[in-house]
């Protein structure tokens, strides 16, 4: 039983940053922006969160700094890809490389350390005890006492689904991706919708990054986003941006992450356990492609 609870806790912790980044990616996906900069945004968020929390001694300031850090990359993306109309793919690659370089450089300049920076002055995000849920025998140990950002991510799924499917903004957002010319002829500038989507993506990636350095662990390490932004991208493409689908896929990813940690306890080399999330992504892609090709051949029988 302990193992299962540990696994579920590991799953939620593993899923949270990917989920937040993928929700951000869902907005840009619907808006028709080929945004691959989630990886860099997560990393910038994680760095700025540690920085803010270290200097202010407040995790709230840390989170705000994380949002600001990720947003600055969003603004760069907007400046290049939307205003100057550079290629989105190249812009995204450049921003990811820039984020990796800049955080490494600043880590050495500001803190004089290589690899990882940890300090007791970094204040982590608190865990939240939910009064009634905590009483439930086994489920209480999973549902209550999680990091604030885990609840934040769950709430974000609801808010994003609501924004995308229930509001005029959502109708315009999806229109920008489906057929920008149609949106334009309806009197809405697609560029504005895309800018909004990228800003929302920055905020969500900032939250995800903050969880990496102030929730998952309490340190900043070079390249600590470790491909989560790319997995988020894969999740978004896999489910065509649907927030509920994104939540499901990232939970599967989190489960693989948890299994990896569990296997580490069983003396499986860390190099192998570390592969688990990426293997899970490949398997998900495989299953999805199979299901899609089956659905296609199925529909032709009807016709």
């Amino acid at each position, binding site marked *: 039983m302990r193992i299962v609870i540990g696994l579920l806790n590991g799953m939620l912790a593993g899923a949270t940053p990917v989920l937040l980044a993928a929700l951000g990616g869902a907005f840009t996906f619907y808006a028709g922006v080929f945004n691959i900069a989630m990886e860099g945004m997560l990393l910038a968020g994680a760095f700025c969160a540690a920085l803010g929390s270290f200097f202010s001694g407040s995790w709230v300031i840390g989170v705000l700094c994380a949002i600001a850090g990720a947003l600055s990359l969003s603004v760069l993306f907007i400046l290049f890809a939307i205003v100057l109309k550079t290629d989105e793919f190249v812009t995204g690659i450049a921003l990811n490389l820039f984020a990796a370089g800049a955080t490494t450089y600043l880590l050495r300049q500001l803190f004089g350390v290589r690899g990882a920076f940890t300090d007791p002055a970094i204040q982590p995000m608190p865990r939240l005890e939910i009064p009634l849920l905590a009483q439930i025998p086994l489920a209480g140990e999973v549902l209550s006492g999680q990091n604030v950002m885990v609840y934040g991510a769950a709430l974000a799924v609801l808010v994003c689904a*609501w924004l995308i499917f*229930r*509001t*005029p903004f*959502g*109708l*315009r957002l*999806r*229109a920008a991706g*489906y*057929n920008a*010319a*149609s*949106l*334009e*002829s*309806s*009197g*809405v500038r697609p560029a504005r919708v895309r800018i909004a989507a990228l800003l929302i993506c920055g905020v969500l990636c900032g939250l995800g990054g903050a969880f990496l350095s102030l929730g998952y662990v309490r340190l900043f390490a070079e390249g600590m986003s470790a491909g989560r932004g790319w997995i988020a991208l894969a999740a978004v493409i896999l489910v065509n941006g649907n927030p509920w689908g994104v939540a499901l896929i990232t939970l599967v990813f989190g489960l693989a992450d948890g299994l990896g940690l569990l296997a580490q306890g069983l003396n499986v080399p860390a190099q192998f356990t570390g592969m688990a999330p990426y293997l899970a992504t490949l398997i998900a892609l495989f299953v999805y492609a199979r299901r899609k090709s089956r659905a*296609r*051949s199925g*529909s*032709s*029988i009807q*016709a």
Partner: protein
Amino acid sequence: MGNNPTHLPSFLPRVPEFITLHQITKTFPPNVVALDGVSVSFEAGEIHAVVGENGAGKSTLMKVLYGLYRPDRGQILLGNQSVRFHSANDAIAAGVGMVHQEILLIPEYTVWQNVVLGAEPRTRWGTLDVARARGAVQAKIDAFGFNIDPDAPVGELSVAARQKVEILKLLYRDVSVLILDEPTAVLTPLEVPQLFAELRRLRAAGKTILFISHHLDEVLELSDRITVLRRGKKVDTVPAASTSKSELARMMVGRELMFTARRAAQPKGEIILRVEGVYYRDKQGVSRLRDVSLTVRAGEIVGIAGVEGNGQYELVNVLVGLEHAEAGSIFINGHDLTHASILERRRHIAFVAQDRSKLAASVSASVAENAIMTHHRLNEMFARRRWRLDMRQAGAFTEQMRKQFTVAMSRPDQPFRALSGGNQQKVILGRELLLERPFLLLDQPTRGLDVGSTEYVREQIAQQRDAGRAILLISSDLEELFSLTDRIAVMYRGAIVADVPTAQTDLEQVGAWMLQGRNQRTAQSA
């Protein structure tokens, strides 16, 4: 000008000069004068057609009115106030809306979602007010008698229905002037009367309708007044009731046109194209061609009629080798080409593709490069030197084509896209005719061409027939089929449902077969 059309319902207030375009001049760099001092007034509650050849300036005029282009000189008066629209939004806010030639809708959205996009009703909490949105759209549908379901996904609608959605979108925004750019170009013959009935209902409700068209019959049937443009200048504005097709044509081109192609009875030649029992499925496994059999004899033009998407596209692809038939066979001049490569087929087929910019030509290549395509492999003149392209010879070849087909161009190395649509088509047609193949496959050869170029292309086709070529002509223009062909085959859902001598059928019958196949033709003709 200023004469009173008699159709106006008496209860409507008369607002004689509702919109006035005054001395509009528009020049595109470097020195193409698209509009030259054009003045027109549109009255409230009239249907006003703007006609002219391609390049006469009708689309430019509408775009100036709509705010997409800024005129160099001249002014737009709405009532007696001078206005200048800076965007489509400005125009719509002032009550002027445009239904574009290419329909701009989102197939993934339902009808009502498409209609309200950009002007959505909101609830108190800022969410989309679905009930109010649907209700408002339904109200417009009812008010103007559009037969359409607000919850239908637009991707599943016919082109005619999508056009209605575009119109609804403008009505939802309460425009009083609707501009329609070639509204009937995408419709089948039986859908046109329905659109016209709807436009008349809009007029009865006091809306002003401006429409651009090539089809003089339609213009005469629908409009109250007609403005004719030629080369950027207004020729005249005339009441539809007091003019005729030939008069309009003369005003448009400045000379008399022959509208009936001469069809001399020909002795039947031998069979050139023989298609037997061809079946084809697309990549999704959907059956697109079912048991298609067809023959075309030398000196004969066979027309294929059909609503777009009923297998014409696939038939063309299977004939030229872009797709392969699942069953059946294709013979040309006795050669079995069922499994032949495209290059092998092109030894026997001259082919004018429907899509000038994608399949028939490379718009970014030069005129000469486009002119020698296919010739560079199959024409003796070029095929001798296999590894080297003789551009000087290509230039000479292009020059010969320019003379023979009267192409208006400056130099052979000029980019193809710089030519007008009519001249592009002349180059393509010229290239294919100079191949001198026994079989000629023409897919919508006059689509998008102006009256003069259309007539030129049709003359060329008739000449080819007289020279003994076998011609298969796919066209969505029924009048074209009736004026040129010896036989008409109708495609419906991938099958040929009728194959009759042109002289023994008529437009209504073919139209009915196109829409309902042959068996149900007595059912109804909506």
